Structure formats: C-alpha cells, structure tokens
C-alpha cells in the first residue's frame, strides 16, 4: 500500500508549483491549477454548507424547534432570483443579513473602536511620546473631516495627519513583508523535505520545459509587464 502521508506531500508539492506558476502571468499550467482548485473548493464549500444546514436547521426542526423552518424559507427566497420578476423576493434575506450585521457592527465599533481608541489617547502631556501620540491622533482624525475646506490652517493640519497615516502605513508594510517571507519559507520547507525533494525538482523541471517550449514557440502568449 502506498503511504498516503508521503503521497500527500508529493501532491501538495506539485499543486504548489502549479500555483506558483501564476507569478509568470496567465499560462496553461496555472489555468489547470486554477480550475482544479476551484473545483475542489466548490465541492468542499457545497458539502460543508450542506452539512451546516443539516446540523443547524434540519436537525433542529426535527427536534421540535419549528421556528427554524423560517430560516429555510428565507434561504429559499434567494432562489427566486432565477425568475427576474421575482427578484424582489430576495430582498428579504438581504434585509435580515444587513439589518443584523449593521446593528452588530455599529454597537461594536462605538465601544471597541471609537471609545477604546479615545480612551487610550487620554495621556498626560508630560513627555514627547505622549505629545506625539496626542497630536498624531488628533491630526489623523481631522484628516477625515468632510466639512473643512482645504485652505488656511486646516491645510497644514491635514498634511500633518496625512504624514502620520503614511507612517502607520509604512510600518505595516514593513511588518507584513517580514511575516510574508515566512509563509513562502514554510511552504518551501515542506516542498524540500528530503523524502519529496526529488519529486519537487522533477516536477519543476517538467513545468519549466513545458513553459519554455510554450513561450519559445509562442503557443503561450507572453505578457509584457509594465
């Protein structure tokens, strides 16, 4: 019997190479991987959500919580869209989702975004760090003012706020970059494990030869990057 764990590593390595070819741009190998991946995920999502509905609606209805029949009816309202005159029926499930979702978003954002951030800025003005913090927060808030005209002193406040925002963006950019290298490394470590490395190299060569042939004979269009 074949070792399924080992086979999994090899297959995983192959499909990863397929996914990485997308870096070159659109090509047949990435297209094959794309359709394979979409198909698997489609089947997975279908099965998982079917299972979810069975467990959370059907089982509950069978158990006597008949109110869950409403959830099924609302779900079926989505399907009516297939007939254009009935399109409006699907507004009800949307009303349910957006109504509840916005309510939850508002209540969470007032307490844990608006007030929590204000609270964290209530610092004594006695050292440079706190002064930077307070000035930065206030100018960044004023950057978003919609009623202020871009003229007079507001111009400078707006510019300062923008600089603070950009500093924040730069920090996040650098921070994300360092973390994302670890993702590639994590994948490469799996692909280059001694027991699968030979297969990874082999497949890499096959892919390289196929692509080289395709590009050199112009069977695959080469897209010029800007």
């Amino acid at each position, binding site marked *: 019997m074949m070792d399924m764990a080992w086979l999994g590593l090899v297959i995983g390595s192959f499909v990863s190479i397929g996914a990485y070819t997308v870096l070159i741009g659109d090509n047949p190998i990435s297209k094959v991987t794309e359709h394979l991946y979409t198909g*698997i995920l489609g089947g997975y999502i*279908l099965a998982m959500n079917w299972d*979810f509905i069975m467990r959370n609606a059907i089982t509950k209805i069978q158990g006597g919580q008949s109110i869950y029949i409403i959830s099924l009816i609302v779900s079926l309202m989505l399907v009516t869209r297939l007939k254009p005159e009935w399109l409006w029926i699907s507004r009800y499930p949307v009303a349910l989702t957006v109504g509840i979702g916005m309510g939850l978003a508002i209540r969470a954002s007032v307490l844990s975004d*608006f007030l929590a951030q204000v609270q964290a800025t209530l610092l004594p003005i006695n050292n440079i760090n706190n002064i930077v913090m307070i000035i930065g927060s206030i100018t960044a808030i004023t950057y978003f003012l919609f009623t202020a005209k871009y003229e007079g002193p507001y111009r400078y406040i707006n510019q300062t706020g923008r600089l*603070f925002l950009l500093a924040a963006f*730069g920090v996040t950019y*650098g921070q*994300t970059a360092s973390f994302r290298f670890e993702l590639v490394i994590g994948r490469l470590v799996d692909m280059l494990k001694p027991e699968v490395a030979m297969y990874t190299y082999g497949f890499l060569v096959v892919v390289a030869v196929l692509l080289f042939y395709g590009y050199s004979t112009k069977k695959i269009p080469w897209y010029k990057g800007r």
Partner: protein
Amino acid sequence: MSSRLVKISLPIWLTSIFGVLMIIEFFFPMPAEITATNTTLRSFVLIVSAAALILGTVILTIAHVRRISTRKPEWYYSIIYLIAFATTAVLGLSSVRETNFLWIYNNMTSPIGAALYSLTAFYITSAAYRVFRARNWNAAVLLITGFIVLMMLIPVGAAIFPPVVPIGEWIRSFPSSAGFRGMIIGTSLGTVGLGVRIYTGRQKEHLGIREERKEVS
C-alpha cells in the same frame, strides 16, 4: 401601492427593526425572550449565508457546464473543474468526515491555499521596488518607515545597525499607532453613519432597489 409596500418599504423596515434589536440588546438589560430571539435571528443569518454559498456554487457549476456545451474558448479547462467538483462534492456529501474528502482537503486545498497566500511575499517585494521611490515627501515617509521596520524585524538587521531596533520600536509604538488611531476612529464614525443612512431608508442600493430620486423639497 401594496406592491411598493412588500417590494420596497417592508424590506427597509425589517432592516431597521433587526438592527435596532441588536443595538438595544447591547446597551440595556433585556428580558430573556428578546435575547433568545436575537440569538435565533443571528443563527438564521448563518443558515441563509450557507444556503447562498450553495446557490453560488450551483450557479458557478452551471456556468462551467454551459461553457463546455457551447464550446466557449478554453472550454476544456472546465472539464477539470467539473471532475474536481464532482469528486469532492460526492465524497463530502456522503460525510464531511469522510477520509478521502479530508485527504483531498489537507493535501491539495491547503497547500495551494498556503502557496497562494505566500504569493504576497513576491508581490510585496516587486511592488516595493516599483513604488517605494522618494518622489515626494509623502512617498518618502512611507518608504523610510517601512524600511526601518522591516530592517528591525529581520534578525540580521539589528546586527548590521543596532540602533534600528529602538528607532523602529518607537515609530511602531507612537507615530504609527497615532495614525491608525485616527483612522479607526474615523472608520467607526463611518460605520455609524452608514447604519443611520441604511436604517432611515436613504441608502438602499444593497437591496437592489433603484429609484429615480425625486428632488427633496
């Protein structure tokens, strides 16, 4: 008139009622019946969302079948989609804990997903080369802070230039936090504003409602 009621007014009213239910529950102690109703409503959202995903998958599959039957360009790729879809769906519908179904997930979906996630490293690098040029003050701020923080975070960075760590930490703790603080406060106000516009029925595009707006008098 009644058609306007069920097609337009009622969905908007329902949106507001559901929303207000969620908000008052957060601030005021509520009788158990209302909290129970709210919990049920939230579980309805999950069920509807699951149903919508099934619907979406079905429509996507129909699109692929049609691509094959009408022999659209590159129709042959759709065959791969259908085979992969059918295999996973049949295995998964029999049971989501089926061994082969989980094997496919663990050994094909996860690696591709991880590989695609890690593509960000490549794009971050090539984007940095293209856009991180000190064309003006704004670009320079972005460039310098990004440069210092990345240098601080890689192990060799501090060995090359030790002061980079305190500088980077300072930027990360103060100017950067301050900038994001302003952005987050703004965003929370935006959320409240959006909520008010939706609940008062002024904004209804998400319901697919289009009305030629009459000028307000």
